[in-house]
């Protein structure tokens, strides 16, 4: 567990959602002085005693950990170990599965995201998600895909939408490739471009946390490298949690690594430590490729 776990967290960002934030602050203030990621700040997410059940089957067991702000936290582990289950609990995606139940507590900058008076829609606006399979909306153009999150939340200011489009596409390192065909159908892009478009789409609503569920596993090595560069760039502004099957990817990109096995959090700590001197035998076996 990261240090600072037991301290009460000062509520650094009390805003409740997108609406209350300055709509024109296109660049979050943090870019001005990006800290080295090894410096610990108040965690973005604090997870306490989190359990997830699907019917009678417990997929995640009593997990507690802190996700550091403006850093990349990698979730690793063999298939079926609860990685994605954990990730999806972080933005209440399990609510779409009728038989799923979530127990425990998750706080985003101190606010209980499962509190009775908190809408899942508000949570998901603050905690965005990118999926394994790129899923740009097939009936929409490139630009419509980027702005869909804003438009369907009632933002129709053309100037703002245009600004956000460019900014999001630039942040997703896609602007130069698509700026001349913003109105082409999104599904005419290549696979790697589609995934970066999905990242741009998630960024356009300016979430505080970005969850990524194996975002590069369906891509070729070149496209994967682009996504990885992009994630390293994004962590200056965003808190990123990434599920990955690729051990090298976790080692290259993340600041913290959590190793899950059979629904339990086995070990969590700075990535360098997990990969070089893990304290658990199971972690060592997994990261050295002896099983999994």
């Amino acid at each position: 567990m990261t240090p600072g776990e037991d301290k009460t967290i000062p509520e650094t960002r009390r805003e409740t959602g997108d609406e209350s934030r300055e709509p024109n602050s296109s660049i979050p203030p943090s870019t001005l002085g990006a800290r080295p990621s090894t410096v610990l700040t108040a965690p973005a997410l604090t997870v306490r005693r989190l359990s997830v059940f699907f019917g009678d089957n417990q997929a995640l067991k009593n997990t507690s950990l802190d996700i550091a702000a403006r850093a990349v936290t990698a979730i690793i582990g063999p298939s079926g170990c609860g990685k994605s289950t954990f990730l999806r609990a972080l933005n209440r995606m399990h609510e779409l599965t009728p038989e799923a139940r979530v127990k425990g507590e998750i706080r985003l900058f101190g606010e209980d995201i499962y509190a009775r008076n908190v809408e899942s829609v508000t949570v998901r606006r603050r905690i965005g998600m990118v999926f394994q399979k790129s899923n740009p909306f097939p009936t929409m153009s490139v630009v419509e895909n980027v702005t869909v999150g804003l438009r369907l939340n009632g933002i129709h200011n053309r100037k703002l939408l245009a600004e956000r489009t460019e900014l999001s596409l630039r942040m997703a390192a896609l602007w130069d490739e698509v700026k001349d065909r913003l109105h082409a159908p999104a599904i005419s892009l290549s696979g790697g471009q589609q995934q970066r478009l999905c990242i741009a789409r998630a960024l356009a609503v300016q979430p505080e946390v970005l969850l990524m569920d194996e975002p590069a596993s369906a891509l070729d090595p070149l496209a994967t490298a682009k996504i990885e560069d992009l994630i390293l760039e994004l962590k200056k502004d965003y808190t990123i949690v990434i599920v990955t099957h690729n051990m090298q990817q976790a080692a290259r990109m993340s600041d913290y690594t959590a190793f899950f096995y059979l629904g339990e959090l086995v070990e969590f700590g700075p990535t360098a430590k997990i990969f070089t001197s893990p304290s658990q035998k199971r972690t060592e076996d997994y990261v050295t490729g002896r099983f999994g």
Partner: protein
Amino acid sequence: MTAPNHRWRNFKNAVVQTLTFACAILVVTPLVLVFYHLISQGFSSINWAFFTQLPKPVGEAGGGMANAIVGTFILLGQAALFGVPVGVLGGVFLSEYGSSRLNWWIRFAADVLNGVPSITWGMVVYALMVVPMRGFSALAGGVVLGMMMIPLVMRTTEEVLQLVPGGYREAALALGIAQWRAIVQIVMRTALKGIVTGVLLALARVAGETAPLLFTAFGNLGWAHKLTEPIAAMPLQIFIYAISPYDDWHRQAWAGALVLLVLVLAINIGVRFLTRDRFQKQS
């Protein structure tokens, strides 16, 4: 591993193949026969007057079915106005909301309704609308066709919505989009062609219904001036002409049947056209 073994197996295969092919041909044959018959009997009676004039009294040659053609479109329009929103929204409920147990019952009810004889629908609407309103009316005809469309449209809408990958729903919700908006603007938009296809097929299906209209729209040899008056419809007119003893009316019935079949065929071809590039990349 011996040759006779192979021969026996090949023989069985050939038998099954021939049998299935013969049955497939049997499916197509009626369409060809019907078309041949209608064209040979009805084509000569199709002329400008057929589309523009009212029926003439018995004994007078000529005349047409203009009122019945317009009547059919008015009835279909009313049916769509009433049946499409209910059917589509019902399908959305089945696909996107609803618990599995409740859905099982709704689906079961819809499937039973799809199998209800059309004359029963006519009787139901007769009791519910014609009797209280004290008269046959175009309105009642539209309602009965709309009611017949609802279960059809509901099931096809549900099916095409289920074809939309769950990833789009998740992606939309992960953007903090409210569920109803995600359904309307993303899921339904993705499945739009399929929904329209289902609606058109349901329209084609009820376009030729006769029995329910006997109790509701009733038929009219002239124009209907209000929706509360009885109205003519092509299937009704064909029915009335066909059971009459007059050769002239028989010819009109053939021509009407041909026009009705062409209408249904046109809708079906329209559907093919719509669904043609369903999963191709747009450019």
